[in-house]
């Protein structure tokens, strides 16, 4: 198996900073905006973005929740699925929701996420933020508004995002 580093720790940090500034450009002081990270891997990115935004804006009250989409997937029965925790302690009715995931691949997870979100209200609008966009591999018409890095990859390859909090180091690698 060969591995190729897509983003190292330094580039990783710069990318997160850029995404945060793009968000601020659009959402100003986040009065009507909330962040929702998709379980299991999107929640680390969502929390990182929340922390960085609060540091930059000197705010303490940017809402960030975790959404599990297992019960909404369309590949139920095709593989074994383990549910994770959903933790959204705010209402998303009439809010601008920023949906966050680490890797955008087929788009099926995001489709399920849009379904799952409806149980918490009707948002004013929904935007998608991803760290890695594996373009040309979409199964459904879904595009991200904010993208960390776009890469070309084939289906048999794997993108691995590692986090300081859980894996000891921020890093993105392509495994093939």
């Amino acid at each position, binding site marked *: 198996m060969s591995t190729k580093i897509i983003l190292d720790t330094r580039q990783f940090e710069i990318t997160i900073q850029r995404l945060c500034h793009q968000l601020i450009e659009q959402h100003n002081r986040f009065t009507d905006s909330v962040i929702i990270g998709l379980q299991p891997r999107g929640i680390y990115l969502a929390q990182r973005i929340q922390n960085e935004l609060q540091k930059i804006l000197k705010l303490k009250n940017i809402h960030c929740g975790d959404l599990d989409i297992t019960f909404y997937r369309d590949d139920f029965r095709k593989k074994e699925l383990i549910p994770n*925790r959903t933790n959204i302690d705010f209402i998303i009715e009439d809010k601008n929701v920023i949906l966050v995931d680490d890797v955008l691949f087929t788009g099926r997870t995001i489709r399920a996420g849009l379904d799952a979100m409806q149980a918490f209200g009707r948002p004013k609008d929904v935007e998608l933020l991803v760290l890695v966009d594996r373009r040309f591999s979409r199964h459904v018409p879904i595009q991200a508004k904010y993208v960390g890095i776009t890469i070309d990859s084939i289906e048999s390859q794997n993108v691995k995002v590692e986090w300081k909090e859980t894996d000891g180091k921020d890093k993105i690698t392509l495994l093939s």
Partner: protein
Amino acid sequence: MSHLSVNHLLGIKQITKQDIELILSTAQNFKEVINRPIKKVPSLRDITVANLFFENSTRTRLSFELAQKRLSADVINFSASNSSVKKGETLVDTVNNILAMKVDMVVMRHASPGAALFLAKRVKAKIINAGDGAHEHPTQALLDAFSMQEQLGDLKGKKVVIVGDILHSRVALSNIFCLQKLGVKVKVCGPLTLIPRYITSLGVEVEPNLRKALEWCDVANMLRIQLERQDIKYFPSLREYSMLYGLDKPMLDSLPKKIVVMHPGPINRGVEITSDVADSSQSIILDQVENGVAVRMAVLFLLAGRQND
């Protein structure tokens, strides 16, 4: 572990400790779902479930039906009293006729012990046992364990006493299997006529004195006297039973520690448990009912998600 080791839920005896833990942790996620403003998820939208109740039931039947609907499954209900069973149709024929209408799962309650196993061997559908005679009632045991876990955390080393009509109770047997697999110490308490002679071979101790049993335990699971299953007299009178084995408030308050009081329902107030105990803060009877829906959702979800071997 991300999947069950079985294709059917026939009893707790047939499943492993890992299965029980998987069901309980999945139920945790469903409990969050049923407390949302919109309580429905689309997981089982392509599944049809038949609820076959050859015996009376309120809680279990409603709980299963609600669990199925919250998972978006299609549901058909059947009760023996107004069906062709009265015209002499056999169980296998009845079920095969229902399955011919393309049903994927069957939830069944039947008066004969082993009815669910019998069916699982003969028909092509996933079977969930919702009570077979005095044998097993697996989902009740699972929701009891889930409710205990909510109160006490990890159950390993905890002490549970099951009080009442152990002889005729399927809840007792399933609870014993389930709790022992989770590392809980179990005692049973009741008139010796209502305790099966060989119960100690399951590793369960018998404590004929209610006060001693309650002083020992963390949780007391109070069972109903199943008069409908009793063909002979097992004790002189209900009044005497209630005096010796009924739990009342003065007894509960006089115990050295606060124990958790459970009851699988239906309650006979004033017999095995008095009203002020049933409605006290130590009783988690209604939590058990709420958790029943979450646990049954987990069982349906995990069984439906399993590809047939």
